[in-house]
């Protein structure tokens, strides 16, 4: 399990670590196909207001679906550059991953902020979707 991805206090961290585990379990063919489909490095910045004090805690993960096909904690490792940085609240991330909120709605309501290649942000939905029923 990708325990090293966890960050205490963030609901998103559970989701991200299971996403990381999933990526690890990819067979090489699956990995290449996922990379082909997405072809981008996402930097996810999750903010979480810390209790009564307004100071915001922040956790950063990098989802590399361009070269390595894995999830790492922190900013993009040297050698890769994030194509898009997506900033959102803990709650928003959880909703996105569960499908309650879709990327476009989140963006338009301002819950999701992007910097960089906006087009890639549209693919984040697909990346996060766990088990999705097929049409």
């Amino acid at each position, binding site marked *: 399990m990708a325990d090293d991805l966890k960050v205490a206090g963030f609901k998103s961290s559970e989701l991200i670590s299971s996403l990381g585990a999933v990526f690890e379990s990819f067979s090489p063919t699956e990995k290449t196909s996922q990379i082909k489909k997405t072809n981008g490095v996402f930097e996810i910045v999750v903010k979480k207001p810390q209790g009564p004090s307004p100071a915001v805690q922040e956790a950063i993960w990098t989802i590399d679906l361009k070269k390595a096909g894995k999830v790492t904690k922190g900013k993009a490792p040297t050698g890769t550059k994030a194509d898009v940085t997506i900033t959102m609240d803990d709650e928003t991330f959880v909703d996105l991953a569960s499908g309650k909120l879709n990327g476009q709605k989140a963006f338009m309501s301002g819950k999701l902020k992007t910097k960089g290649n*906006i*087009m890639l942000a549209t693919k984040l939905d697909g990346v996060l979707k766990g088990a999705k029923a*097929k049409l």
Partner: protein
Amino acid sequence: MSFQSLISGSECTVPANPLSQVLKHTESDRSIQQDRFAGPSSSRLHHLPGTSSSAATGQDIALARQFFEASHGGPAFVPSAIPELSNSQMKDAWIVEQQQHMRVLESTKSQSQWAAEFDGNAQTSLPQQPQSMHSDPQQMPSYMPVGMYGDYMPRNNLFAMGGPPLMQTHTPLIADLGKGKGKSREADFEAAFAQIAASFPSQETTASRIVEVDDGVTDIGDGLKSTTLQDHTTEPDFRRVWDHLQNSDAPPPAEDLEKWATDFQQLMDAQRQELNYGNAMQEAWESGVGDFTDSLGDPPMRFDNDGLPILQEYIFETNNKYLDPSNSTSSPLSDAKALLEQNGALSEASLLLEAAIQKGDLGDGGYEAWILLGETKNMDEHEEAGMRALSEGVKRAEAAGALGAGMMSLAISYTNESMDRACHVMLLRWLRVRFPDFPVSEETVKSMSTHSSWDTHTKITDLFLGVARQQHSEGIVDSDVQIGLGVLYYTHGEYVLAKDCFESALSQRPGDYLLWNRLGSSLSNGNKPEEALGAYREALQIRPTYTRAIYNVGVACLNIGAHKEAAEHFLSALALQEQTSGETSEQLWFTLRRALITMDRADLADHAKRELKGNLDYFRREGFDF
């Protein structure tokens, strides 16, 4: 020496006190002062059409005020305005002027009410416009952008984060305006003044002259420059005109007001184009440029000019027993169809179809077999192969002029693989083939291949809704249109709406197992797994070998949290596939692994790989019942 002493020094020190000269100057010949430093006074407002050349300084104040309040670039802006006043000494004079401008402004405010009164019969928009023109002249150019920006917000909902940046790019624009006015003021003042003096006989002519100038306005900078050329009246002149107007019988001609209104509109539209942060954002949004063509390492999915992915050739199964001549039947195609009718194994059917294609037995128009193969592959949870086959089939069908055969299935295939934009492109094609009379703008067609999937989604959904409404008014329920709409809602995450669409399609085609599956998926992704299971059961009753439905049942179980059952379902689907053709679906393995990982059985997950043969028995031994 301090400015104070300069300003308040006694008159008799005139020679030694240049500033007092200046002050006298401002008090007496205010008009020229105004024009030199502050542009046309607000007194000329009533001449103004859409552009508020207005009190340029008044405008500056308002802008400055607004900027200070909004704390956006205020400091950046005001300093740029003040230097335009050519002379720092004039600063105080300027301040004095502003007060006067304010006073003039008051009077014009009352005038604007008058204008509004006169305006009883004009378009409803007019009273607002002259009023806003007159009463808030200086605020208009600045507020308009902000107002427009505000308009953009609800309209496009795109610029949530665009706020601050808008102001910042806004600032240079306004600063430019300030500079522009300064230049024009200083350079053209004499000429303009002469012009105005000559043009000033009647209010109507002045107004229409101004209107003429503004017709050519495409750039607010130019517009303001040009209006300053026209509007150099003096305070005494204002009084004259004011009296003239008050006494004249004619109300300001309605056409003029209308002209002002249209020019206002034009200018605002021009402004909209100019104030392009919003547009820049929109373009960034829509420019599907992205990085589709970046290729580092493995080539990413390539898309052709139409926005459809470029797939590899379909790879036929090499060990296809139906290709064996000794085993061949007369028509593998019809065999395949028969098999499908009888709920035979999907993989068998696909093998038959492959054989048929390879033998040249392609069915109707040379595409039927391909499309059927694609659909079968998809049902059998071999998405990529299915997509390729469908792609081939659709190509041939289009060449044969068939009415959108297979397009819907292909669109669904695209969306299953997260190629949303390709899905939209295909749906649009289907729509145009099926409903050639339904108007689709050229722009929409073009944008399909280049804009982002979020944008294309909106466009295509609107189109489908249009068709659906039209049909509804005619009392038709076209299940295909409903399916298309359902697919669109589904890709957008609007699962409730998708469910409604599929349900209405089902009312037309109750035996369509594909539809049941789709309904189930809409429910499942819409977080109603129990109802989803019900729909899937229906599908499986009609078609027990529907692998995809079994897969979806597994997914629904996962969502409920019944991981073991989920794994069992996946395993049974895999077993089904293995029995018939041996080629198992990667997707099934993958999701099985996820289920196992979620069960914290990573050891089992390691065994859940397609390459490891004979492992299904392994799972049986591990206690999975399938």
